[in-house]
């Protein structure tokens, strides 16, 4: 009986290890699979013509991904520029200022926001945001915009990642011990000074982690964005131009036109590029976080 308990104890750890490895191996397999599928185009076209050219003419075998990469990066950038200040101020309010009752009333709707399916955000974007951008904003800046634009995509995406950032920020702020706030208040600092010099400073690694997660999520968001961004494969020159992000390219075209030579391989390369962007982004932010944590301890 005693031996059985010890045996089970030994097995459990290893079983858990297997499942952990499964997740890790999956990432490697996906990366390898995407590379394998995009290998033909990587061999036939030069890397510079694929990444640094914006010419997309599948029938002439020219596959320049630059406009798609630019579309993905600019939509994500707009989304985070809009979402971060809003989420930060909301997070600070809910964590530091709001009474428990107010917090209980305000938090569920914000959580609900993150539960709405992306396609509904897309429809809502088409009905509200696209005309709003066209009629209320773009007219002041450019001669013509259809409203289906980088800005519309960025706004819809921002609204989708705001609840994610808020909920992570609240988690981060709640780990700051109250004694630290009291230490600052007790020398006569105001609430805002305490937030600025102590709470936000101490939370900086967590805030960065929240932004990283939100950006990673934003890179890959497909359906809501493709419904409002116009899907024209050109580098957007202003935020009122249409753009065509990588996930939209894949979702719109995979399964069609696959008789065109290299087309499937090109779409797989699009997926591979997206994979690499997210991978690099995560790696860089991990390095920043590591540096930050080391310098503050």
């Amino acid at each position, binding site marked *: 009986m005693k031996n059985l308990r010890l045996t089970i104890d030994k097995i459990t750890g290893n079983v858990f290890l297997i499942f952990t490895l499964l997740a890790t191996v999956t990432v490697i397999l996906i990366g390898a699979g995407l590379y394998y599928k995009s290998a033909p185009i990587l061999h036939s076209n030069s890397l510079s013509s694929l990444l640094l050219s914006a010419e997309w003419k599948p029938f002439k075998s020219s596959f320049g991904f630059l406009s798609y990469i630019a579309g993905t990066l600019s939509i994500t950038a707009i989304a985070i520029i809009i979402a971060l200040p809003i989420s930060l101020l909301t997070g600070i309010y809910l964590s530091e200022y709001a*009474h*428990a*009752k107010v917090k209980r009333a305000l938090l569920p709707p914000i959580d609900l926001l993150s539960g709405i399916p992306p396609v509904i955000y897309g429809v809502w974007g088409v009905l509200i945001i696209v005309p709003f951008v066209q009629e209320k904003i773009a007219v002041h800046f450019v001669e013509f915009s259809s409203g289906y634009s980088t800005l519309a995509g960025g706004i819809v995406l921002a609204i989708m990642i705001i609840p994610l950032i808020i909920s992570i920020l609240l988690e981060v702020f709640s780990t700051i*011990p109250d*004694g*630290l706030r*009291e*230490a*600052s*208040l*007790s*020398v*006569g*600092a*105001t609430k805002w*000074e305490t937030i600025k*010099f*102590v709470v936000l*400073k*101490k939370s900086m690694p967590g805030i960065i982690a929240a932004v990283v997660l939100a950006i990673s999520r934003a890179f890959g968001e497909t359906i809501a964005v493709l419904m409002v961004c116009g899907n024209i494969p050109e580098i957007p020159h202003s935020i009122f131009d249409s753009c065509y992000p990588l996930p939209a390219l894949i979702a719109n075209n995979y399964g069609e036109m696959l008789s065109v030579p290299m087309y499937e391989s090109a779409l797989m390369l699009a997926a591979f590029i997206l994979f690499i962007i997210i991978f690099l982004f995560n790696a860089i932010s991990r390095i920043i976080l590591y540096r930050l944590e080391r*310098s*503050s*301890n």
Partner: protein
Amino acid sequence: MTTEKPHISVKNLNVHIDGNHILKNISIDIPDKKVTSFIGPSGCGKTTLLKTFNRLLDRQGNVEITGQVLVDGEDLYSPDTEVTHIRKKMGLLSQRPFPLPMNIYDNVAYGARIHGQRDKKELDRIVEHYLRGVSLWDEVKDRLKDPATRLSIGQQQRLCLARGLAVEPEIILGDEPTSALDPVSTQRIEELFLELKDKYTLVLVTHILRQARRVSDYIVFIYMGEIIEFGTTEEVLLNPREKLTKDYVKGYIS
């Protein structure tokens, strides 16, 4: 009970937290430039009483405070009292040290900067003066730019004391300030308290009777939210009038 001039006067203070009556009709005069210790079993309300003095208690929701707390004759709970002004008058030392997320120098300079001191030379002087005051200067003078979290816990607590003293308070509040410290660090903090009482009024919460005896001039015994006995250290610890105090001092109730 005492003939000394009071620094903090509490009058008919009642505190309810989440509907529970935590402090019941507290009235007490805390003498100027003496060490007064609050003793009593866990949960008796001694920390709550301490936190009413610098208005940290009413930060949290669902706290109801009635009665008066007068510091130098000024009512802390009157609507036109400025909270930052009161808190500046009182240094706080908590159960475990909370160094601010910045370097050693900035920790001590924090309060002075908040209150408008910009002059670099004056800040240097303040930092050195108060770090010397808590006998930490020689240990940290070569690494003032290091994060404060790299100090040992005992050093951190002395740093927090220096940070509190640097805004020139009149009162020092200690909420079991040695409970996280080793015996040597505890002894240093206690020695500092004895030095500080010439210039400051000290109010300590402690559950260590020997500590109360070593450092305090007056002792307040609190039980179930009420003050049972208040007197000089000798009176309360050696010659208690009340049976409850006697039982607590002898260790029958804890």
